[in-house]
């Protein structure tokens, strides 16, 4: 309930530009502003031919906007754990809105005994801990398993809450291999967070991100690093937050 209220009250300084939308730009900007768009949109891999895709977080944890556009069409998506709203700007540029299910990995990748980290849980953890390191890993990925403890140790050294989150698509059966060999602890917590998914923390394993005072750094730490390099990367991100 509280999250919903935050969504209603925390409106960001809405500057939808610079997404170079061609079709109905003014209407798109107005709609994005209404939906708490942040000022920075990041380009994504495209969909259909000629299509461009950009996304941006909002001021509400776990709620992201994504726009897909061509020269002749613009579609805005507003996604959270709870729902995905699709806004199509037709020929007249009048927005046509439809609502569908939100991002919920449990439905597609559910398995017994798994614990799921959704955005509400993530926000609560980030409120409880002033700063931390989120480590998204997959049991089948050699380095992500092998370096689990190194990341954990560095996080502890730097007084960061270490939050390991498993690839939502992975299965317990994969733990029979490398993860079991390396005796990786806490394998049960799986990713069900729009915030982490939209930040591309599941495109490569491991991928990590630093948070501080309720804010997540804009960028991932990709892959693994030796301790000194990792310390520097984390410190740099903490400083920037």
């Amino acid at each position: 309930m509280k999250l919903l209220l935050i969504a209603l009250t925390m409106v960001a300084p809405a500057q939808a530009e610079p997404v170079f939308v061609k079709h109905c730009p003014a209407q798109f900007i107005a709609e994005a502003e209404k939906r708490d768009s942040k000022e920075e949109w990041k380009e994504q891999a495209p969909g259909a031919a000629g299509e461009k895709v950009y996304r941006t977080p909002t001021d509400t944890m776990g709620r992201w906007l994504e726009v897909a556009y061509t020269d002749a069409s613009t579609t805005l998506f507003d996604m959270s754990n709870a729902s995905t709203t699709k806004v199509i700007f037709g020929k007249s540029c009048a927005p046509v809105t439809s609502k569908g299910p939100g991002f919920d990995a449990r439905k597609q990748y559910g398995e017994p005994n798994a614990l799921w980290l959704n955005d509400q849980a993530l926000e609560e953890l980030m409120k409880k801990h002033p700063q931390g390191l989120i480590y998204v890993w997959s049991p089948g990925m050699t380095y992500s398993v092998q370096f689990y403890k190194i990341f954990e140790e560095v996080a502890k050294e730097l007084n960061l809450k270490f939050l390991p989150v498993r690839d939502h698509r992975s299965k317990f059966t994969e733990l029979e291999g490398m993860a079991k060999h390396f005796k990786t602890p806490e394998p049960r917590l799986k990713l069900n967070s729009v915030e982490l998914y939209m930040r591309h923390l599941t495109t490569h394993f491991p991928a990590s991100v630093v948070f501080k005072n309720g804010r997540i750094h804009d960028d991932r730490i990709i892959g693994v690093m030796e301790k000194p390099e990792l310390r520097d990367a984390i410190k740099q991100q903490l400083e920037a937050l």
Partner: protein
Amino acid sequence: MIIQSLLISLLSPAANAANCIPAREAVQMPHSGQYHRVHPSGNFVLYSTGRGVKIADITDRANPKEIFTPMKAETYPVESATGGWDLVASPYDVGGMNYYQFKDILKDQDAAKSVFKDKENDQYYHSSAELPGSTADVRKVRTLLYGQTHREYTMTRDTAGNFTKVEAGPARQQMCSSFVNNNETPLDRSLNAEDTARRAELTQQQTEARARSEAANNRYFDREQELSRSRRRSNQYTSQERRELEALGAEARRLSDETSRISRELREYANGSAYRALSTQLREVERAYHSNSSPDARRTAEAEYSRISALLDRYRYGNSNEFRNPILSKDGTLVAAGKANGIAVYKILPDKRCELIAETGFAGSKVSFSYPVQGKLPKLTFTSDRGPSGNNERGAYVYDLETKNAKFIGQAGEYASYPGFTKDGRVIYASNGSGRAGFTIVDPNQVPSTDNATCIKAASRDAPSDDTPTDAPANSAR
């Protein structure tokens, strides 16, 4: 174990006729594995499991087989521009990185023996390629490690036709020890007296603004809860209560906006005057874009915007993320690496410095290069996790380094992993989840649109170059 399998063709009968290249084929072969590597013939896919490496033999698409090997997880082939796999490199194997002959693996399976090993150049997430100047009997090989160091080898075929004589160059040579592009020059982060003073001032303002914003939010929540406790629905509030809540909400929004404004300004001062100047330039480019309707002017503005954004990203993200997970091209002369917000491709110069030649501008997995064609840059294939516009699926892409265009080659409802090029330009990837359903074979030129009636007899690889020998026959040990 022989796995039941079935070939599903997604094309019309016309395209299934003999010698026609299907736009898309699916090979059903459920398996659990990672790090798939596609053989240039398209007949084999090597993959790692928790219990070592296996090879999927998909020569007969309707009847794929599993081949056991002695190799360890994350084995990577020694790739070749000519389209062969003479050797495969198995990391953290007995005695170091073990190089096996692929023909031995096919013949002896898990009883195959390695032909040489290297303890000094041994790491997971490596890539390996034959370099230009290799001949049929003498191969020059570069093996690049995850740690961004590499080693070069000269491998000579003995009288029995095996690559047993190996001369290794110096180990732990840094790859891309420096970059020749201006984009990679050191950043000016110097703070002048004004920066330092303003930074301290803004830090204090930010702390206070955050506290005010949080207090305003709490006032709203507390009042809302107080009203809720009276068990009334929001549409039952009196008009005075509604006005009161709206006023509290508006105040919370105003203070949140104020906090964001201060944070933005702080970021600019914290990064120094050079960063601030770039931020100002960026805003001017945005204004120029929107005040000018000429397509040429807009294109110029877009390019300028990308250039400045990339520089600002470097300030904000630093360089620690600028060169991650490097992968060699098939001829070992290019290297692709993950960056903060995308994939970058560099040309490796003779002195091992690197020259940036392309950036995707969006995030993706590690890449596989296409086989080289004379006079043209190769293509990349990789996956990217898509958002709601792509139904939150993981899609396979081909990125053309010549045109700088990306193309989605997957299908709705699909989860693609580890795409790799065959020599004829098709892409093979593992499809549908960590419990893989099998493999998808795609001709990028024929998707997503094909008339399905035309018989395509050559896949999407560009015209063959003079330096490209003919393909090894199917089932060849190469």
